[in-house]
């Protein structure tokens, strides 16, 4: 099978998955509203007939429902963000990284990592998708360097397997590669507990989907307490 034929099939499958996802999520909202609404109704109308344990159980039911709802939102956002027509053009990634870092300064109050951005790194990509991919990668780099000593975030290129490759590197909390194999780029996969870091685990999954749509590659290197580097390159360089 030719490469562009594979790409077309992949796009078709992605579209089909998006439609399925949309249908499922739509149908899940109603029962979730019932779970939340009627739990609330019991609390309001019959709360005085329950003891603390009973009320605690009910609040757990409600929280569970709200969590499912947040997961649906994240999945839909990921699908919406990463679909749409592909219009590849020459994109200056370095400029984008600069803009996104400025935006992240505002998001992460009291966190001021040093940022090093190699100038004029360009690639052929859809502009909107490139932006979303970089947001996801950089947001992770910012998130996982919070509270670290001398936090540093770099964007640059280097040769990997004989090909020029972009990277986003941080000296943050990192993770053990042995637990990441095969699941790091999957949806809702997290390398840290929810108490340590916020997030639902869709950042790298979205980045991976965007890279795949461009026929590119993405992979990671990480070490606990040393930091993480995400490498990526597009098919067309």
């Amino acid at each position, binding site marked *: 099978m030719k490469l562009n034929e594979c790409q077309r099939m992949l796009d078709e499958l992605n579209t089909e998955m998006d439609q399925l996802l949309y249908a499922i999520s*739509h149908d899940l909202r*109603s029962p979730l*509203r*019932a779970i939340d*609404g009627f739990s609330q109704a019991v609390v309001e109308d019959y709360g005085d007939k329950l003891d603390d344990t009973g009320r605690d159980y009910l609040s757990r039911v409600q929280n569970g429902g709200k969590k499912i709802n947040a997961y649906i939102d994240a999945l839909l956002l990921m699908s919406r963000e990463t679909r749409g027509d592909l219009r590849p053009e020459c994109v200056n990634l370095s400029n984008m990284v600069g803009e996104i870092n400025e935006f992240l300064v505002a998001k992460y109050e009291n966190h001021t990592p040093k940022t090093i951005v190699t100038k004029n790194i360009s690639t052929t990509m859809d502009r909107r998708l490139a932006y979303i991919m970089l947001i996801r990668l950089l947001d992770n780099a910012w998130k996982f360097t919070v509270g670290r000593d001398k936090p540093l975030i770099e964007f640059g290129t280097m040769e990997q397997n004989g090909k020029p490759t972009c990277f986003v590197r941080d000296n943050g909390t990192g993770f053990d590669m042995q637990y990441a194999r095969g699941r790091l780029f999957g949806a809702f996969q997290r390398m840290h507990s929810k108490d340590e870091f916020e997030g639902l685990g869709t950042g790298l999954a979205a980045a991976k989907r965007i890279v795949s749509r461009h026929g590119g590659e993405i992979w990671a290197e990480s070490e606990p307490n040393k930091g993480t580097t995400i490498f990526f390159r597009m098919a067309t360089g």
Partner: protein
Amino acid sequence: MFNDTSKIILLVEDNPDDVALTLRAFKKNKIMNTVVVAKDGAEALDYLFCTGEYADRDIKDSPQIVLLDLKLPKINGLEVLKKIREDDRTKLLPVIILTSSKEQQDLLDGYSLGANSYIRKPVDFNQFIEAVRQLGLYWLVLNIGPTE
């Protein structure tokens, strides 16, 4: 503020849970209007055009507002809206789409067919109550309809 509670609200909603929650939200917000529930698009049209089981109803007693779900059995919400706008007797009726969907296409179709408002049902019941409160305040009290 004055709200004429003799005016009817037509709620077009097939899911009994959502019907119960919406009625509860009305009650919580002290919206005392009579609510007529149509369980599918066909029943909604029967009510509006006084056909079928509503053949005895006087079409001049038009509801003050229609709350319309999109995903409905038999005839879907967008089709109901289209029929409302095509008929001189109902074309000015305020129709508020109340749905789980926030898909761009549904929004575009809804507004293209002449929906007056598009509200997404939140999963969080407190947010739902607040949405119904604002909806009631705006559409039943502040807004002056075409036939008043």
